[in-house]
């Protein structure tokens, strides 16, 4: 018997030793993260600020994505639904996250107290890709008649998994560390997936259904602009923003990208 006990103890120790030992960052909370009093926040001079805008195009035929079968939950749409992974309309690509890579050199930015809203509607996440600042609240709604669970899978932030009843109270969360393309999934409905991008500055955008995007209030200077798509990877370009001018940066993705 002693040997049996030893076996289980050793097995337990081995399993615990095999667990992820990565240091967990502080818990996300429902409150906006306070800024450090010593760090002055950047105040953008809007009289000189410029902007960058452009269009994300998709070269070639859009891939044929399999339709989503949501019949496992009667509260979800009964008919096959189009997925949000690759949304191409008239050769323009939606749901691409565009951000200024080196804007954090400008200093520390205060996070807005206005929440970014994410909804669960028709057993889809709306929007499919979103961006928010470190410490900015993310308000999660469930306007479905289906129950959902919201499970982000972060690399730098704290993971959590919470269920939300139909039309239940909003869940409000913040993320304390920058992170790009953090997947969020619902394990009750495995087709539901979206991406959250957390940045330390406000210079980001998500391409609209017509492929367009615009990033405003950018101080003059040279920057690196990055466009990320969940399936087609990342593209980078250099831009120069002149005072009160709008720079243009277009990206072209194709099925060969990545």
């Amino acid at each position, binding site marked *: *018997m002693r*040997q*049996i*006990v*030893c*076996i*289980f103890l050793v*097995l*337990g120790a081995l*399993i615990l030793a*095999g*667990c*992820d030992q990565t240091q967990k960052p502080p818990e996300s909370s429902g409150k906006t993260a306070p800024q450090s009093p010593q760090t002055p926040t950047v105040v953008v001079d809007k009289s000189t600020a410029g902007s960058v805008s452009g269009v994300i195009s998709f070269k070639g035929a859009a891939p044929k*994505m*399999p339709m*989503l*079968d949501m019949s*496992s*939950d*009667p*509260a*979800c749409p009964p008919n096959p639904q189009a*997925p949000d*992974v690759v949304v191409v309309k008239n050769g323009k690509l939606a749901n691409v996250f565009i951000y200024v890579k080196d804007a954090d050199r400008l200093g520390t930015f205060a996070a807005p107290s206005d929440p970014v809203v994410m909804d669960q509607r028709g057993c889809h996440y709306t929007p499919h890709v979103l961006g928010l600042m470190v410490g900015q609240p993310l308000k999660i709604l469930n306007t479905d008649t*289906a*129950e959902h*669970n919201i*499970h982000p*899978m972060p*690399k730098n932030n704290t*993971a959590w*998994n*919470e*269920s939300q009843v139909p039309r239940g109270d909003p869940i409000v969360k913040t993320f304390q560390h920058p992170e790009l*393309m953090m*997947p969020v*999934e619902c*394990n*009750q*409905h*495995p*087709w539901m*997936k979206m991406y959250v991008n957390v940045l330390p500055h406000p210079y980001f955008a998500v391409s609209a259904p017509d492929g367009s995007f615009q990033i405003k209030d950018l101080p003059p200077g040279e920057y690196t602009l990055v466009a990320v798509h*969940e399936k087609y990877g990342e593209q980078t370009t250099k831009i120069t923003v002149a005072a009160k001018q709008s720079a243009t940066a277009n990206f072209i993705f194709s099925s060969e990208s990545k």
Partner: protein
Amino acid sequence: MLTGRLLGESWVLAWAGRIRVYSGLFGATLKSSIYNAFHHRFTVVVACLAFLLVIAGGLVTSNNAGLAVPDWPTSFGHWFKAHMVGGIKYEHTHRLIAELVGSLTIIVAVWTWLVDKRRWMRWLTVGAVAGVVFQGVLGGLTVLEFLPPAISTAHAAVGQTMFCVLGAIAVFTSRGWLVEPDESITKKEARPLLRHCWMLIGFLYLQLILGAAFRHVWTKWGPAAANRWPAQKIIHAFLYPHILNALLVSGLVLYVSLRAISKHSKIPHLRRPAIMLLILLIAQLLLGFAAYVTRVILGVDELQPTANLVATTVAHMGTGALMLAVTVILTIQAYRYSGEPAQVLSIDGNREVASA
């Protein structure tokens, strides 16, 4: 081998000796006061439910439903009630069957202590209870720690181990076990069979761990989930070693089965599991190929688990569990038939091992 390390080979040998003590105490007739038909049938039911539980666990992973119920040990704050839709039906059903198997294993232990005077048998059932509790805690950790592949893989491996333990308990309480064998094999004949049986158990465990790690890493970090590991990286790290190890397992199954069938064909308790192993091997290789096609060739870009992927993967995992259990039973029977009761009795002859 891993199993040898896990169980402690010396302990198993000593334990097998006890078995021989027991089987050698009786003549060719059944000790009717030992055999309890209801007790035995109950252990068979529990072992079958444990297999059902393994299948239910496979359905949870394959449907990516491991976190459909965020809390543990309750489901949405309740023990039994849950809205059985989407991923919840897989996860909650798995929990319900687990609670049932856990409760029934406790009953097996209590019942065994009441009707079976074999000391090792009693402690084996206590070990089974400890094992299912440990397994339940591992299951809880997978939920509360958001499916860490190391713990999820351990949960898969311990689950199949407990299925083997409960299957062995069913064998030990059977009528066939309680009758002294008519046939026996010499230790010299048994040694190669036993050695290769242990090797097979070890490689089957390795196969189980590689397969489970592949699925759990895929589900946690793969393209369908966190998208942190490219599919090819996961395939190279876990699937190709799994396929390579399948060749070793196949070779060992062929050796063990053909040896048992050819050299011990008169002993049904060795012949039957050997034939069963061969049949399972053929099925397993076909299912493995089907699971490879549905996941790696057709399923990398799937946005949700397909019925074909789930069916082939779960069937492959279930057949693997059966192969492990049959190999364990074959090994136990090989020990039993290779015993020399007179010598064993001299070690422990005065011990009362049977109830009057």
